[in-house]
């Protein structure tokens, strides 16, 4: 069952990448990043059956980093929304070159 799980992981990761590129809503871009993290988590869990329990530990760490990232990212979105009254990423471009 390793190969199907890795394939599913690849499919979800690619869908997440597509979402990050094509969507404009900052919150949905964040959701798609979470999707990518979950795809990697699935690969870790599937491979942990073949390499040892460390794979599951990594998933634990990834989840913690995802929680921290969501908290900080959503705070940034709130802060940006307060300034620009929108979460459309095309509308705030001060950091673009």
């Amino acid at each position, binding site marked *: 069952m390793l190969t199907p799980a890795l394939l599913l992981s690849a499919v979800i990761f690619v869908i997440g990448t597509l979402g990050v590129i094509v969507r404009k809503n900052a919150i949905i871009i964040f959701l798609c990043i979470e999707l990518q993290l979950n795809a990697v988590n699935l690969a870790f869990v599937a491979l942990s059956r073949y390499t040892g329990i460390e794979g599951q530990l990594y998933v634990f760490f990834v989840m913690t980093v995802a929680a921290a990232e969501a908290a900080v990212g959503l705070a940034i979105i*709130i802060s940006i929304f307060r300034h620009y009254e929108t979460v459309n990423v095309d509308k705030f471009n001060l950091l673009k070159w």
Partner: protein
Amino acid sequence: MTDVLFILFAVVATGGAIGVVTGRSPVASLLFMVATLASLAGIYVLFEAHFLAAIQVLVYAGAIMVLFLFVIMLLNLGHDYRADLKYGSWTLLSLVVVGLTAGVLVHGLMGTEETGLRAGGAEVAAAIDAAVVEKGAVGVIADPLFTDWVVAFELMGLLLLVAIVAAVVLAKPRDREGGN
């Protein structure tokens, strides 16, 4: 039975992922995401990672998704039904990037059959199952976490503290008197 369940969960997870990207309202995308996370938890159970499945439902589908929902409602984005896809050269770029990513991933996956992963797989899986019977589903994660990985664990706690402080500082409205 396991294969049928895996296919079921895989279909729901993929459909949910597509729904996240194509959903018009942010709330719809969020609910699709919850479906994806829940079916991934089901797949974790199929891989005997019961503790991670519970954490996935409690922390991810529960806490983090509620945080997203809370922000959507706080910013009143729930009835934002305009399509917000980028178009023009972005479509082309996204197709190129997604195609390349898929190609690299599939190319990497085709090699997994030949590597030595399969050879030692049965013993490793049996060892994990024996450890689960001996220490329980939580103990088998907690034992290496508090011994070999304790530095990473403490750093994780520090990271969460920094994230909390940063979130409060960022989301707090600015003071009127020029300071922050």
